[in-house]
């Protein structure tokens, strides 16, 4: 496959069957390998779309400084696109993220401002909003509320899935900014409304939920619960177990958040088997495991991995 530039190659990812993890010939699991994007994660789609839309709207021009709260992948994707297009990028990232994320951000030329570990991404959002107010010349694309994030998945991820798997019955993805689920969910509501849209939400260690009061909670502006069929919370133990199973049984080396998504996908598959209904369940492999090697997720027992991930933003 030939493209004019790296940015033109974003998307068009393979959808691969999982013949051994699928519970029966009638209930099949399919993995969409988003780690095949230029920086190795699904966030390349949203980053490219948000920058392209801001350029089209005349909000930014090369030479400008972009600011973004991110736990890592979106920042890395934005850094890559920003470098190609001539922008400076400042990322606000929680300090409890893997060291690989810091290294990659710096390699692609981003500047990092760390936010406190307690409170996780909520804190990063708060700090970034404060910086944006202090620096009116910086442009915050704001992945949690930027319609171009979800639109990227409406325009590309959704159509790719339907083209590759016209018999799709379920779509399972991670719930972070909600961009993937909202965009793909809206696409299927319009093009194949019986497809069930299932969210897998990472359940972190207690440090991440260290809010001062309940009113500091956060729901991304993009989120529309009406587009979802169900929503599961998946803890690190189940996520790591499934992540390892995916490598062991099907040879796919994925990150920890993909394990959480697979847990929800397999739960869905088992329900379909029990109900005796055929199903084609597509789920997202958000990224490869490379960025998480230092976290301990791939070594030792499940207990070791669970302890190692406690307090980290692993998705």
């Amino acid at each position, binding site marked *: 496959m030939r493209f004019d530039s790296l940015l033109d190659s974003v998307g068009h990812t393979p959808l691969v069957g999982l013949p051994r993890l699928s519970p029966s010939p009638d209930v099949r699991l399919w993995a969409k390998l988003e780690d095949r994007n230029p920086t190795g994660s699904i966030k390349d789609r949203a980053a490219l779309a948000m920058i392209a839309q801001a350029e089209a709207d005349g909000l930014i021009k090369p030479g400008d400084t972009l600011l973004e709260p991110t736990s890592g992948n979106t920042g890395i994707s934005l850094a890559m696109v920003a470098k190609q297009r001539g922008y400076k990028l400042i990322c606000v990232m929680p300090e409890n993220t893997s060291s690989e994320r810091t290294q990659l951000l710096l390699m692609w030329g981003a500047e990092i401002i760390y936010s406190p570990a307690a409170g996780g991404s909520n804190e990063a959002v708060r700090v970034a909003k404060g910086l944006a107010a202090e620096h009116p010349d910086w442009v915050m694309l704001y992945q*949690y509320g930027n319609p171009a994030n979800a639109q990227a998945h409406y325009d590309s991820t959704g159509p790719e899935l339907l083209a590759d798997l016209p018999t799709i019955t379920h779509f399972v993805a991670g719930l972070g900014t909600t961009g993937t689920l909202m965009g793909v969910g809206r696409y299927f509501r319009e093009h194949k409304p019986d497809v069930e849209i299932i*969210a897998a*939400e990472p359940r972190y260690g207690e440090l991440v939920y260290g*809010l001062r009061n*309940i009113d500091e909670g956060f*729901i991304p502006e993009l989120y529309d619960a009406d587009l979802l069929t169900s929503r599961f919370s998946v803890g690190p133990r189940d996520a790591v177990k499934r992540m390892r199973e995916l490598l062991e049984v099907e040879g796919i080396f994925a990150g920890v958040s993909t394990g959480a998504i697979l847990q929800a996908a397999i739960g869905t598959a088992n329900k379909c088997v029990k109900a005796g209904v055929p199903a084609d369940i597509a789920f997202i492999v958000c990224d490869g495991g490379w960025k998480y090697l230092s976290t301990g997720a791939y070594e030792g027992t499940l207990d070791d991995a669970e302890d190692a991930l406690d307090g980290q933003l692993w998705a």
Partner: protein
Amino acid sequence: MAVEVRIPTILRSFTGGEKAVSAEGASLQAVITSLDASYPGIGDRLLDDSGLRRFINVYLNDEDVRFLDGLSTPVGDNDSITILPAVAGG
């Protein structure tokens, strides 16, 4: 019918620091009523006039109750309920 309810850090001031407590009830509403009887005031932190508070998520065996039957969701023995504040991902 006893169920285990996992309490987030931010609400443990009501449970004397306990991370998980036992409650009774055949529906989520009944479980919250039972919780509030044991730990007065906690119900008000979970519910407002419209139902579950906006930034409170409740999961029955890892599934978000907003996509089940909300406060009417049936709860059985051996079920586990987890309460968490809504936080950002991404």
